[in-house]
C-alpha cells in the first residue's frame, strides 16, 4: 500500500527526526519526503509518500498526534 501523509509540525530538527523515527517504527518505506517552512518559519509542512502494510499510514498519522511536536497529521490518499 502507498500512503500520502501531510504533517504540520513545529519548526525543529527534533520534530522532523521524531517523525522519521516513527516512519521507521511503522516499518514503512520512504518514496519521497518534502518539507518546507510555513508561517514565517515558525512551523514546517511535510508531505510524505510512503509505502507499507495496510493500516500503517493511519497508524502513523494517529501516532504522531500523541506527541506535542505535531499540530496535524492527515492521511491524504492511499493506494494499492
Amino acid at each position, binding site marked *: 500500500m502507498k500512503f500520502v501523509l501531510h504533517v504540520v509540525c*513545529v519548526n*525543529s530538527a*527534533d520534530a522532523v*527526526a*521524531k517523525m522519521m*523515527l*516513527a516512519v*521507521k*517504527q511503522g516499518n514503512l518505506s520512504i518514496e519521497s519526503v518534502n518539507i518546507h517552512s510555513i508561517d514565517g518559519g515558525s512551523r514546517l509542512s511535510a508531505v510524505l509518500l510512503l509505502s507499507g502494510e495496510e*493500516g500503517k499510514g*493511519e*497508524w*502513523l498519522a*494517529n*501516532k504522531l*498526534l*500523541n*506527541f*506535542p*511536536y*505535531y*499540530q496535524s497529521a492527515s492521511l491524504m490518499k492511499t493506494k494499492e
Partner: protein
Amino acid sequence: MRAADALVNEMARRGVEVVFGIPGGASMPFYDALKDSDIKSILVRHEQQAVHAAEGYARIKGRPGVCSGTSGPGATNLITGLVDAYMDSIPVLAITGQVVRSFMGTDAFQEADIVGLVLPHIKYAVTVKDPNRLIQEFVNAYSVSMNGRYGPTLLDIPRDVLTEDVKKAEDIQPEPLFNRPPPEPDIDSIKQAAKLVVDSEKPVILVGGGAVYSMAGREILQLAEHIAAPIVTTTMGKGAVPEDHPLVLGVVGMHGRVEADLAIIESDTVICVGTRLSDRAIGPAKEFEKGRKVIHIDVDFSEFGKNVKPSISLPGDARKVLAELVEYIKHLIPRRPESKLAQKLHDIGSAYEEYMMSIDDGKVLHSWKVVSILNEILPHDTIITTGVGQHQMWAQLFWKTRTPGSWITSGGLGTMGFGLPAAFGAKVAAPDRVVVDLDGDGSFLMTCQTLACVTDYECPVITVIFDNRSLGMVKQWQDMFYSKRYKDVEYNDRTDLLKLSEAFGVEAFRAETYEELSNIVRRAVRTNSAATIDVPVDKGELVFPMVPPGKWLQDVKLPPGFDLTQRMINVSRMV
C-alpha cells in the same frame, strides 16, 4: 532572577516534592537552586535508579515523577528507565544538564545529544537554548506527560542557560499543543458497542494498564457484574480491579492464569480496556481475532488496529467511555444472572493452585508458595514491585492485588533491576504503606545500590529475593527451546547477598523455611523496618502455565502432571 531559581520555584508551584538524581558539572546551578527550596532531592547511586524511582513515585502519587542527571553519562544512564516509562506509559519528567551553549556540537567533555538519543522513546524532549523559554518548556513537558496517553518527557538545559537572569514567571500555562483535550466518548459508537455486548453469549473484559491510570476499576466491575462477564487483565492491568472479586480471573497471556487464558479462548466478544494487545498478553493477533468480536477502548487512537483489528473502537478516557457503555447496556438488558462460566473457570484456577501446593515435597522452597504466604500475611494495601523474570511471573500468577494501583512492574520493556528502585520511589510517595519488592537475584544485583538510599532516607522497603542463583527465565527458555543447552545463565554462590545488603546498612536474613520467611516479614512490617530477605528457591523451577512464543493461548503448557482435559470439555459445554 536566575533561571535555575525560577525553574525550581515553578516546579514547587506545580507540586513537585521530590527530585531523584545525581548532580554533576552541567546541572550544578539546578542543584544550587534546589538547596534553597522545599523540594527534596534524593541522591541515588546510579541514574537508572532515579528514573525507576520516579516511575514508582508517579505510579503511587498519580502525578509525574521527576528525575535528574548531568550531561553526558548522567543523561545517558537515564535512557533505560525513560524507555521503560515510555513502554508502560508512566509520567516521568527527566531534567538533564547540558554543556554550555557555545560548546554544544564540539564533542565537549561530557557532551551527549540526549534529546537525539531518547527521541524514539519519549513523548517530548527539548534542549532549552533560550533562558526566557525555560519555564514555559518546563510547564509544557510536565503537563504533557499526563495529557492523553501518559509518558516520559525530558528537559535538557545547558549550564549557562540555568545561570542567566530571567523575568519572574507569572501563571504560565501549557501551550495548546501540550494541552490537547482527550477525545470525548463517541455516543454512536458506544451504542453500537452496547448492542454487540448484549448480543454476545460469552463476553469477557480484558483490562490493560490504561484502566489503572484512568482509575476505571469501579466502572469495569459495574459492567462485568451487569453482563456477568469474567474479567482478565494484562500484566500492566493487574490491580485495576481487586483480584479477590469473584469475576476477576487474573492475568492472561504467556504466563497467565490458566482460567484467564481459557476465558479468552471461550469468549465470543472481548471488551479490551486500555491495552495495546501485545503478543505477550494475547498471543498471535490473527488467532485472537478469529471467531470473536473485539471492542477496543483506548485514549490513544494509534492503538486501534495496530495489533488487532477491532469490531468497534471507542476512543477516549477508559473510565468515561465505560460509564457511558454501562448506562446504555443497562437500558438494553437487565442484569444477567451469575456467570456459571466464571465460576467454572474459578474452579479450574483453584484446582491449579491446589495442584501447585500439592507438589511441594518440603525439600526445597517453591516460589509460588513464597508468594502465596506473602499474600496471606501482608496488609491488603501493600504496594508490590517486581524485577523481571521467573519471580515476576510467579508474582503475577499468585499475588492477589486487592488495592487498585498497588502492583508496579516493568511490563513492556521488561527491565531487570526495576523492582528495588521502583519500590524505593513508591515508599517515598507513600511512607505509611508497606512496600515490598519481589525480586530475583539477577534483577536485584543490577540495581542493589538502591539499598544505600533505603538507608540514607529511612525508607524501609522490604526486599524478598527469589534466589535461584541463575537467570531463571533465560534458563527456562534454554531448557524448553534450546535442548537444555545452558549457557551463561548460572551465577556462582560466592556473592553473599546478605553481606551485600548489610554493607549498605539494610538488615538481611536468609529464610530457609516458610515459617522463617513469615516471621521475618511479619517483624519487618510490625517494626516498619527495611529488610532484605534471601529466599533460596528451587533452582530447577520452571514457570507454568506457559504459552510458547508465537503460539495461541490454547497451546499452553501446563505444569507437568496437571491434567486440564476433562475440565476444558466441561467449560466448552457452558454458556
